[in-house]
């Protein structure tokens, strides 16, 4: 293996040599031409563009592309080297990514790697990237590095420590007087990881779990399961669900009712961050407390955030991608910014040096400051818990203004107080 391990390092060296060669060749022709001919910095990744994760994948990719265009418009990095993305579709599947990343590393010889959106496609490439000693910027995967222990992995997602998610939600619920918890989760990867941490945190706090069910993928009708949940009269309802199911669950809650005992409802519902879903759910969303990564509240605007969304909105409509794009797109852009800052500071594409810089510093991005802990996840969680308020039907534009999703957690970004119980908050 020794022969190959040295390769990735030599890639960047060779690229540097090549660009130096190009520079020498071009120098008599003047600086402008020199800039144009400098070899681009190539960033390789796979991205789900078909299959179940495609909606998120496309939005995320658009965020990264906007970053690329911004950097290139400013003249590129490392003295005029443009950014070039090499992107392949992994069909939302784990089985495609090893071959794709081998192609990126061994054939395309890209300079840097980004991970695909989500856990399933990312998990199989972790051991490979570690073995070859390559830097990898993660993209919303959940705890893929906990067993692998790669020290050059940095996740762009705001998750933070694994249990912080359940902790923040249960904090809100318990503060509102919650004494029991019901747990409804999709029997799929991400939701099950959330459910597991929720159980652990609840046990630690001696919070009784009165209902704990995992519903199977492709469940059509949630009336009966909501009825069973309601019968246990829980105070806190923690739901970890996937996009089509989130809609089904909220509809069933509206139809069947959930009972007056419930203080807070939501927590881990994937899908309620996507424009198309939010638009079609409309007023059914009111009262739900759910996780988010970015929201148009005042506290969430950092340098460049507004400009980013101006560009995003225009391009997303053309590309038939989520017109809001709060959930993933700004973090795709932030992935680029992380790399941009690191390259600027280090002054080369040396992967070890870039990783060292990323690990040791706090980085300012359009989604706020990012600092990493030893496992490559955020030092502190920046997952928002927010409550839907005053949402009306059939209007996607309403979600662009502040106040529709009031941030309850974390404290430094807070923009309002919880309205409880759930039934009261729905009105």
């Amino acid at each position, binding site marked *: *293996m020794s*022969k*190959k391990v040295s390769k990735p390092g030599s890639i960047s060296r060779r690229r540097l040599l090549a660009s130096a060669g190009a520079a020498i060749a071009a120098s008599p022709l003047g600086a402008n031409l020199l800039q144009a001919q400098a070899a681009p910095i190539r960033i390789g990744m796979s991205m789900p*563009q*078909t299959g179940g994760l495609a909606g998120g994948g496309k939005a995320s990719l658009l965020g990264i592309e906007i970053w690329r265009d911004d950097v290139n418009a400013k003249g590129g990095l490392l003295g005029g080297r443009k950014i070039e993305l090499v*992107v*392949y*579709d992994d*069909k939302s*599947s*784990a*089985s*495609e990514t*090893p*071959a*794709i990343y*081998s*192609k990126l*590393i*061994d*054939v395309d010889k890209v300079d840097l790697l980004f991970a695909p959106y989500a*856990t*399933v496609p990312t*998990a*199989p490439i*972790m*051991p*490979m990237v570690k073995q070859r000693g390559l830097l990898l910027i993660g993209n919303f995967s959940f705890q*893929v590095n906990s*067993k*692998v222990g790669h020290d050059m992995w940095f996740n762009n997602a705001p998750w933070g420590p694994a249990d912080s998610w359940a902790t923040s939600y249960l904090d809100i619920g318990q503060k509102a007087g919650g004494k029991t918890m019901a747990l409804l989760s*999709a*029997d*799929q*990867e991400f*939701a*099950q*990881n959330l459910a*597991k941490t929720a159980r652990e945190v609840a046990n630690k706090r001696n919070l009784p779990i009165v209902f704990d069910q*995992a519903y*199977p*993928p492709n469940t059509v009708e949630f009336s009966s399961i909501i009825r069973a949940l309601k019968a246990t009269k829980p105070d806190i309802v923690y739901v970890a669900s996937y996009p089509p199911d989130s809609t089904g669950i909220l509809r069933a809650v509206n139809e069947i009712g959930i009972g007056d005992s419930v203080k807070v409802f939501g927590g881990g519902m994937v899908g309620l961050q996507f424009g198309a879903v939010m638009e079609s759910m409309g007023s059914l969303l009111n009262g739900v407390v759910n996780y988010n990564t970015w929201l148009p509240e005042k506290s969430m605007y950092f340098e460049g955030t507004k400009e980013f969304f101006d560009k995003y909105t225009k391009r997303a409509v053309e590309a038939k991608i989520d017109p809001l794009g709060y959930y993933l797109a700004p973090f795709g852009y932030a992935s680029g910014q992380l790399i941009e800052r690191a390259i600027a500071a280090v002054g080369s594409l040396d992967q070890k040096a870039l990783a060292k810089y990323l690990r040791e510093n706090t980085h300012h991005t359009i989604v706020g400051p990012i600092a990493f802990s030893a496992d490559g996840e955020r030092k502190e969680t920046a997952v928002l818990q927010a409550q839907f308020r005053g949402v009306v039907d059939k209007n996607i534009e309403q979600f662009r203004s502040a106040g529709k999703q009031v941030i309850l957690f974390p404290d430094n970004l807070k923009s309002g107080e919880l309205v409880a119980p759930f039934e009261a908050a729905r009105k």
Partner: protein
Amino acid sequence: MKRSSITFWVGAAVFLIAALAMTQIVHNQYPFFAGYIILQFIALAVAWSILGGYAGYVNFGTSAFYGVGVYGSVFLVKAFGAPLPLQILAGAAIGALMGLALGLLTLRMQGIFFSIATIALTIVIETTITNWRYVGGAAGIQIQRPEVTAPFDSYVQMLFFVQALLVVLAVAISRYIQHSWIGRGLQALRDDELAAECTGVPTLRLKLLACVISGALMCAVGAPAAMYLQYADPGSAFNLNYSVTTLAMSLIGGTAHWAGPIIGAILLGTTQQVLTVTISSEVNLLVLGLMLVLFVVGAPEGIVGLIYKLRGNRKEGEI
């Protein structure tokens, strides 16, 4: 017959030597990653054809067998740290049992009823694995590869060679079946099950045998995939794609001759690998769809059928 046997085994030996040589000479890893996938599909398509092609029983449950192979390995690695050969052997054994169970369960079912039963079986098994926490359940599981053994210097190269061995094994079995009484019996069973039974062909035993062999091979092919991905989750391991792609490969190649599935798998498998790293979008799926439609419409007997036609009136099984 004899001369063709010699040709076959020489060809198989050359293929294996070439695969081994490739692992020693080529240092770029990508050909092994992509090649592994293609070889895996060749083996799957050949195994599928034993039941689906010769006997005409369309098995939609390729992904069930493949997934059980994957999870068999996951379990063995987690519980005993079992080495790769043991994983594959165990996979074959489990697959044989599963094939037997499928055969017994569907004894009286014919045609599309059999196919639907295999779909149902897939869902039952996938749900069971999803609920089995020890092997990761719905959340999936990451597994570590052990050290690679000489003469290979990367694990993927070794897996590539192992899969090449499985391909030769599957093809040899399939070829043997085609030329033996089993193949003729299955052919009779496919043409007219009732008539075959009346003329003394042991249809039930043959069908069970085909289920067992096909199942064992498909599971064995799935077994090393756990080590290839170093990760397993039910959604990927039991993906409907394995069933559809395998069926498509066999039909595109043609099921009348053992070489058909190989040709189909090489053609479709390579196309898919190339598309993944070129066009790489939903157009990829469009190409698969169009290829399926065009081939079944334009070449109903597959590529092998086309070759027969071009060669004139030669009877099946002569090459």
